[in-house]
């Protein structure tokens, strides 16, 4: 199984984050063309969590996502080509165009399902983890969700059952303090979410989601415990969403949250932080960054090319797969 060393494997983590960042930037740049005709919930600024968590997973481990899952999908090794094609509604999209940005799958990478009903995948991930346990496979199941999702009753049901059966499942709470434009304090009283998870009998961790090394380190510990049979783990990572809830634009003008200055964001940028570390501890220079940028940009470019070369799905196929 994968086991990342967050200290030595920083280049890989950085690569993973950069891939998400550049892919989403490319989406954002072209989104106004109104050719990606589906809502997109971008995770720019939050890449550290997806990258840090998924670096600890094997292909056979499964990941479940939510409405904001480009990062989860890519970090788990999902195909960028088929994701971009999916957002464009193309036949070669990972769902053949049936899903769009909010429904992602790549079975070959162990990315099981993202769907946009908040909380919808949480119990699915518990079921998948239970399946591992019943089959005596040493894999883990992972579900990403937001602070808003924590309010859904199904989370409580899922934590209770996971703790009861000691299921190898990681609950990853991406706490960006927002549900759409509604801040955490309008939805939850002032107490830590980890306290509730812990009270349910889960092992809990809390960390800075913008520090990919911290994410990777805490996850590595949690995955190890879950694999060896210690049951469900709950990891909360604080982070910050740069763009609007949905769509490609910065929405500072709406005035629903305090400080959106560029400096505020940059100070929290997971790439910037990791980049500084790469320079300092790994001796990276401009060339190294440029080389990586090139690789990533080529992949992104190729993905958009793949997508535009992909045919539209045939209208008459729209009824296929209604039933298995």
């Amino acid at each position, binding site marked *: 199984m994968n086991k990342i060393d967050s200290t030595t494997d920083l280049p890989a983590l950085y690569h993973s984050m950069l891939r998400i960042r550049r892919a989403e930037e490319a989406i954002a740049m072209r989104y106004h063309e109104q050719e990606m005709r589906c809502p997109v919930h971008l995770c720019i600024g939050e890449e550290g969590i997806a990258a840090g968590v998924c670096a600890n997973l094997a292909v056979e481990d499964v990941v479940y996502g939510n409405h904001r899952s480009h990062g989860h999908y890519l970090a788990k090794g999902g195909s960028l080509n088929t994701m971009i094609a999916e957002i464009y509604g193309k036949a070669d999209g990972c769902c053949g165009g049936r899903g769009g940005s909010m429904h992602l799958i790549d079975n070959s990478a162990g990315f099981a399902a993202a769907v946009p009903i908040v909380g919808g995948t949480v119990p699915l991930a518990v079921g998948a983890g239970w399946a591992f346990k019943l089959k005596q496979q040493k894999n883990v199941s992972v579900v990403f969700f937001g602070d808003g999702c924590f309010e859904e009753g*199904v989370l409580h049901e899922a934590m209770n059952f996971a703790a009861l059966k000691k299921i190898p499942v990681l609950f990853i709470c991406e706490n960006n303090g927002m549900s759409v434009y509604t801040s955490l304090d309008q939805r939850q009283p002032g107490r830590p979410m980890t306290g509730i998870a812990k009270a349910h009998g889960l092992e809990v961790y809390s960390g800075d989601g913008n520090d990919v090394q911290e994410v990777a380190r805490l996850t590595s510990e949690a995955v190890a415990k879950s694999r060896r049979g210690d049951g469900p783990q709950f990891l909360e990572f604080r982070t910050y969403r740069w763009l609007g809830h949905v769509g490609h634009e910065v929405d500072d003008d709406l005035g629903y949250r305090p400080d959106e200055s560029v400096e505020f964001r940059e100070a929290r940028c997971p790439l910037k932080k990791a980049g500084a570390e790469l320079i300092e501890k790994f001796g990276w220079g401009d060339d190294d960054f440029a080389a990586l940028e090139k690789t990533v940009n080529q992949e992104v470019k190729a993905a958009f090319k793949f997508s535009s070369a992909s045919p539209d799905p045939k209208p008459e196929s729209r009824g296929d797969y209604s039933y298995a």
Partner: protein
Amino acid sequence: MHSDESGKNSQSREITYGQAILEALHQTMAVDPAVMVIGEGVADPKSIFKTTDGLVEKFGPDRVTEMPLAENGMTGVCIGLAMSGFRPVLVHQRIDFALLSMDQIINNAAKLHYVFNGQVTVPLVVRMLVGRGWGQGPQHAQSLQALFAHIPGLKVVMPTTPHDVKGMLISAIEDNNPVMFIEHRWLYNLKGDVPKEPYRVPLDRAVVAKSGKDLTVATYSHMTIEAIAAARVLAEYGVEIEVIDMRVARPMDMEPVLTSVKITGKLLVLDTGWASCGVSGEIVARVVESAFKYLSKPPLRITLPDHPAPTSQHLTDDYYPDAETVVNAVLSLLDDGEKLPAEEICQRVRRTSLRDIPNPAYVGPF
């Protein structure tokens, strides 16, 4: 795993509807280790009115699992299991409890195969019991098949006979789609011939339960029993009604109904649930769309009255339609129905026991 035939060559004997369910579970679990049974009470001493009796002893608590009271979450867990190679059978003692899990059933189970372009299947069976009578009241006596039958991606079956419930449960478990398996509580003690060996009954076929040329009755589940009781007596008065057991509310098999209506010209539809946007209206609409010119009279629907189920036996007395309701409806549709002795016929189908129980042996609470 099972032979495709309908068990005709297998030795059969009389068992109850409930026993037939149990036998289907035992046989399916014995053959396929992916089959699991999960629910509140599946491993308790009452074992869902004995339909899961002995399963936990035989297959162990990993495969026969009590669950927390968490209908939505556990439905999601079962979907996750189903996506991971298992074939869970989730059980709700009352279909009313499944209202807590509509999100997982409709948003996820019904759609994942479709939206993921066939890359995922959800072979999940949800057994749900419909309560009736003996004080079940408004939150324990709903017959909510219409809510599920509205949703593409689901299959909705409502077997009537011990033979069908065994064969259809086996088919449902082997099916790669989410199957809503709706069992009417009043059928549980019904006896009938059931082959010993495993067999399948298809999940997309209606069947003629009693043939006749004068009028077509489309019905399912417990109302089939009432229809047959009415048909038997009516036959003695020269009225031959054709009773078609629809068996499945989605996908609906209209062929036998259309064939029959083309002969009889008259349609009566019976439902265990409410009328508005229900299964009965769907049947009427489809018949009208496909066999309009054969109809000599407007079709009639018999459903629950349009209000919640009251609890008191005095109030439920005529809340639930039965054979007598069927007789009256049939007579009203026949061209010379008024010439027949309605009261005499009704008398003969009228239950002598209290009307809030299927038979005198049936005592509460349950």
